[in-house]
């Protein structure tokens, strides 16, 4: 009896330790994976060498889930309705010029990205070979690729702006393709 008690008081120890270790590893793995995914989203931003003299205005804004409201206010609804995961928004500035805004929205699936693209691109601009489908609105480009919807918006449609927004969009397009 005493031995039995002793066994029963000892036997859960290794099991508990084992389960705790598994739990810890699982949580750590999940946290690392989440951090990795965040890192990947930032990694889609163009590198300094691709910015043609433009500079990030400030650290990028990053939001997840319903925090999208804090970034784009009521514009968030169509993303959330389709299935939104996270976004990064980065403004780029150059002396004497208005900013260029790059936004990358990561949706839960390619279908969700396509659905939002359909909303954002309807009736405006011309089709352009960018991502799976893209639209060129002169001062802006919108495209979707994989589970991402990307917008690059300049202050105007001047030749200088056009060169920059096309370069930014292509840089993101290549990075998304590499990550697939």
């Amino acid at each position, binding site marked *: 009896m005493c031995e039995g008690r002793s066994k029963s008081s000892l036997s859960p120890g290794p099991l508990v330790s084992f389960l705790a270790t598994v739990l810890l590893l699982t949580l750590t793995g999940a946290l690392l994976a989440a951090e990795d995914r965040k890192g990947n989203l930032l990694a889609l931003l163009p590198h300094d060498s691709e910015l043609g003299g433009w500079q990030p*205005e*400030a650290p990028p804004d990053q939001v997840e889930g319903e925090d999208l*409201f804090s970034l*784009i*206010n*009521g*514009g968030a*609804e*169509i993303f959330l*309705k389709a299935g939104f995961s996270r976004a990064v*928004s980065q*403004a780029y500035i150059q002396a004497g010029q*208005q*900013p260029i*805004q790059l936004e990358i929205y990561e949706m839960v699936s390619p279908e969700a990205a396509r659905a939002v693209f359909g909303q*954002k691109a309807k*009736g*405006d601009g011309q089709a352009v070979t960018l991502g799976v489908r893209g639209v060129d*609105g002169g*001062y*802006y480009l*919108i495209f979707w690729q994989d589970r991402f919807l990307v*917008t690059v*918006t300049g*202050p*105007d449609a001047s030749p200088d702006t056009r060169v920059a927004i096309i370069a930014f969009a292509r840089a993101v397009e290549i990075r998304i393709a590499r990550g697939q």
Partner: protein
Amino acid sequence: MDTYLTRRLFIYDGTLLGFGSLLGGPLLTIAVEAGEALDLAVATGKDYFRSTLAAVDQLGGMGRFVPKGARVGLLINDPFRHPGTHVSPEVALAVVKMCYDAGAKGIQVLKDGPRGYWQRTPLARRYADELKSLTPCSSRYVQVGIRRAVSLRQAEIIRELMEVDVLVNVSISKDHAGCNFSGILKNMMGAAMYSTCRYFHYGKGGWNEDVEFLSQCIADINLLRKPALCICDSTECVVTNGPFGPGKIVKPQKVVAGADPVAVDTFCAGLIGLVADQIDMIGKSAEIGLGEMNLRKLRIKEINV
């Protein structure tokens, strides 16, 4: 205490006069009743800062709306970053300058703009002191009841909306996916907490599917506080993919000023190819006495700057 205040329910009777209107409202009413002033002033030009100064000057100057020593609440439609979706910082900055020139004691921002908003204009350096003196949004909301409301009986709004002496509503004319047009009336939603705004948009159906309800809620929230002055930036306006953009842009290059939000919206809707009669929000606002949408009854002056 703060928690208590933010949940406190004020019943507002919707007489269109705010708590501080003893300073701003009666002066305006006297001026209009005496028939000495224009209803709308419209300034056209490429220098949006100067156009804004000129439009308000045509109305009799900011001193007509902002008495010396008044605490001004400034509600600017500036949350978005794409061209044609936010008030030009030149327009907003001109309003700030005029308020201080008129002797405003302070300016309370009723909704903070995005990072870097003011820096989009080089004029920000010249008026750095004025910008530095702006009181940022407190983010403290109170629940208010609106007695005359048809659909929106309660709303959570930024506390200072009811506390400032004078409200100046600075908005932009643009497309809106829900109510077709966004201007002065729609901008009052900027003073509301997002939960209230979502209530507007969802109504009895999905997002933006109940336009009549959304339009009535916008009219109702405007019962809370009539602006002493409305400035509508109709310089560069997105006419598709609104309110967030990016989308097709038209450039009327006009700044419209007036005290009547319905009249300003009616005029500005026309500037971007819309007809006010077909915008439910404007009609419902006129029906509950928020202003006049028959432009032929108004004294309107247009100038080139």
